[in-house]
């Protein structure tokens, strides 16, 4: 066992861990931070993305011992009490999720992207979150959500109601006629 000291979502922890323990397993199983999920076994999907000293990383491809002395932020640590982070709020408002499994990683990767690029184009958003896979193929609204959040974080109030200048951050209209079961459920 190897001793580690980390701060996770603002709280300090000192633990003994097996060196082979992956950071994501430490977060979920030892600290109970189950908001961060495991989606794949190949470093592809990005569902487990957290911030390590402020940078997005795939926590399934980091050993817990490598995080010794570091600050970790998970999806559970980005809201301020009951107030959602602007990126969380935008994913909610712009329907940036379907099953929701990729969402924690998408949000953590998006926050990291917006830190470097506060006003990304659609292409830049798609490139910026290329390390995150949505298996519901919901990328359209994810891209809209990231751009919506970017506008909000820049203080661009014209986007705060879902209508930016060029209109491309409007949520997609759901065509219930094309999906009768949706209408029935509704």
């Amino acid at each position: 066992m190897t001793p580690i000291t980390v701060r996770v979502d603002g709280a300090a922890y000192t633990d003994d861990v097996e060196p082979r323990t992956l950071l994501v397993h430490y977060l979920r199983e030892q600290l109970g931070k189950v908001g961060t999920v495991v989606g794949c076994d190949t470093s592809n999907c990005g569902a487990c993305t957290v911030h390590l000293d402020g940078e997005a990383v795939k926590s399934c491809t980091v050993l817990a011992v490598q995080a010794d002395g570091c600050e970790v932020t998970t999806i559970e640590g980005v809201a301020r009490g009951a107030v959602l982070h602007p990126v969380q709020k935008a994913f909610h408002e712009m329907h940036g999720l379907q099953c929701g499994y990729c969402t924690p990683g998408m949000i953590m990767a998006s926050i990291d992207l917006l830190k470097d690029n506060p006003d990304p184009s659609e292409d830049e958003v798609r490139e910026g979150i290329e390390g995150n896979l949505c298996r519901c193929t919901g990328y359209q609204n994810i891209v809209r959500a990231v751009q919506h959040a970017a506008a909000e974080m820049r203080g661009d109030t014209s986007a705060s109601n879902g209508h930016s200048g060029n209109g491309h951050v409007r949520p997609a209209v759901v065509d219930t006629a094309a999906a009768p079961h949706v209408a029935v459920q509704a």
Partner: protein
Amino acid sequence: MIPAPFAYARPTTVEEALQAIADGGEDVKVLAGGQSLIPVMRLRLAAPGTVVDLGKVDGLRGVRDDGDAIVIGAMTTHSDVLADPLIAEHAPLIAEATGTVADRQVRHRGTFGGALVHADPAGDLPAVALALDAQFVIAGPSGRRTVPASEFFVDYLTTAVEEGELLVEVRVPKLTGQWGMRYEKFNRVAQAWSIVAVAAAVRREDGHIAEARIGLTNMGPTPLRARAVEEALAGAEATAEAVGAAAARAAEGTDPSSDLNAQADYRQHLVTVLTRRAVSTAAGL
């Protein structure tokens, strides 16, 4: 999956790291950013007895100016490379290729030195290091030695770093004159490895191409220089026709593999196309 158990060493100096590597014997793996090593350990394709983690070794991270060269510490992350002003000024080809590596999460952890020592034929940085005539500084029990890029990449996933040794830094000579550079990469989906890629640095003089250096990614078990193209371009007019004729020779001497992404003959065609594009852009055409 979870990696098989291993003994873990966390040195803080190069000397301690070399000692830990020596203590680990034959069954030791050096952990840099871990973006290739941890996945293969998780899949149990590798199960080293000892892992020596360089994460806390001081002095292996960062880029410095050393007169006629810039020196990149082996543990400098891809993200740090992308943000570095010395690399932007003296070796923008490295930054351009680094920007195509995997995705931003991987680039935050993955390191320049780790990617070079891993020496994956489809990795982007080996061909760039070869094109720029980089020098590899390797530390071992009996001191340091410097190996030129032309001798560093030995075979598939194999470099000149011997057992008991460690890559500590990479010296990239500053180029003098009017150089243009371009990394032209072909892949099909996001965060994918290169099917083929071409790293080109071209020096122009009086409307001619005075000198060209071209590195090829994934055209054999190691990165290759496209010597036939370089010879054809030396002194050639800087025209689309001359570049096209020279680039047609890009597959000479290559030995690419066939895999799910492409057959060897397709790669040999693709490399001529990508070389033409890379050289044209680098030459400002």
